[in-house]
């Protein structure tokens, strides 16, 4: 009961804020809405017994990625001069985009409702998971079954660091 109520409230917040992200004129308001979306999603993850993902969601997305966004928005200080122009030309595009979006949603909705969720049941039921601890399980899997992707992820981050520095650095010396 309480869970359903929480889901409905959080779901409504998520949807409202997501729409806010899209339709806010000022990028900083979009960013604030996005942060709110992410934090509300973390609550949903807890409802789904994924505590670690919830914590990381807040820590990584809200605490790091979005700070970077807000940072860049402030640094660039994009002002009115950069307001989206050519309203007339875009009306058609906007309408068709929203139409396409609704279509996509309809398709996804139909697919999810029509599908019978089958598939092999794994061993990690919520009870079993609470016994071991969600975080411990994630850690165990990352260092056993998924150790290879885990190590690759470091290459990915390294490439991203190099890339970000090379693109945004002030002066590069020959």
């Amino acid at each position, binding site marked *: 009961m309480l869970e359903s109520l929480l889901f409905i409230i959080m779901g409504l917040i998520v949807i409202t804020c997501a729409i806010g992200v899209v339709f806010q004129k000022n990028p900083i308001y979009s960013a604030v809405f996005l942060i709110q979306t992410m934090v509300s999603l973390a609550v949903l993850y807890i409802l789904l017994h994924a*505590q670690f993902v919830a914590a990381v969601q807040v*820590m990584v997305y809200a*605490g790091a990625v979005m*700070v970077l966004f*807000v*940072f860049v928005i*402030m640094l660039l200080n994009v002002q009115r001069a950069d307001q989206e122009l050519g309203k007339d030309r875009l009306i058609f595009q906007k309408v068709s985009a929203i139409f396409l979006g609704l279509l996509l949603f309809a398709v996804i909705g139909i697919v999810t409702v029509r599908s019978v969720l089958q598939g092999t049941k794994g061993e990690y039921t919520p009870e079993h998971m609470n016994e071991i601890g969600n*975080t*411990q399980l994630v850690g165990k899997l990352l260092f056993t079954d998924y150790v290879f992707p885990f190590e690759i992820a470091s290459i990915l981050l390294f490439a991203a660091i190099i890339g970000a520095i090379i693109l945004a650095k002030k002066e590069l010396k020959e």
Partner: protein
Amino acid sequence: MLDVILFTFIAIIKISIVFGLLLLTIAYLIWIERKVMAHMQVRLGPMRVGWHGLLQPLADGIKLLFKEDIVPYKASKVLFIMAPVIAIVPALMSFAVIPFGNKITISGYSIDMVITDINIGILFILAVTSVGVYGIILAGWSSSNKYSLLGGLRSSAQMISYELSIGLSLIGVLMITQSLSLVDIVNAQSKWWFVLFQPIGFMVYAISAVAEVNRCPFDLPEAESELVAGYHTEYSSMKFSLFFMAEYANILTVSAIAVTFFFGGWRGPFLPPVIWFLIKMFLCIFFFVWIRSTYPRFRYDQLMNFGWKFLLPVALANIIVTGLVIVLIG
């Protein structure tokens, strides 16, 4: 059914006691800071209001409450009003998982001296405090004042940089206890405090904690000589005091974490656990004030270099060494 009601009742009681005490402590923290600093500088500090100025925080609070609340004409109103709230809520929330004492039993019903013991305790704290940055950064932006903006940018950069070191410095302890729950961590220290096993981790934590709460010598975001008052230049009245409270609440949080992680939490002989916890925490706070009245301010590039090029590698090395030792000892 009765259980549920009792549980809810106790939870509400616990929350209100912790919350009330927290606010009171924050108020008196300011008094303590003024007094300690005064005596370090051979002054007396507040003396007029009450015995040795004990009622000073009350007077300050009433003064701030009745001041005119100014919202700058060009500010973006919503964010300007929201920012102080965003700053203080996470600061208070992180106390939800900190254990203040052992279990106590009242008429056959045992009560944990912690609002809630969740198995991702420290992750919860790190996640919640990382949201607190937005209070500052949005305050800086929404004031449409260049000093505020610069202060906001500086502080958010600083907080993000040092958050990494904070997280990494605690991992050594987590590796020893193999649990993220703060209750488990305190229980694991029944023999030895972890500061003995993790001296480097504690040093890194202590330094980055000072930086994380924007205290001297890392108080660049509000460097008076450069930025007026940093991100809260434009704030007045209650909104200003909310920022002030957030800052002190953060000091309490990092002190409480330090006590829990490195100094055995509420454990100690003779005295009741809660008292031990408070004593340890106030020693940490004294340390904060001590540093503030002793050291000059860093320069900004020094601050960043120190964080990224010294603290971070040291914290990483600490993790590697801890891991090696654990493997070798088995």
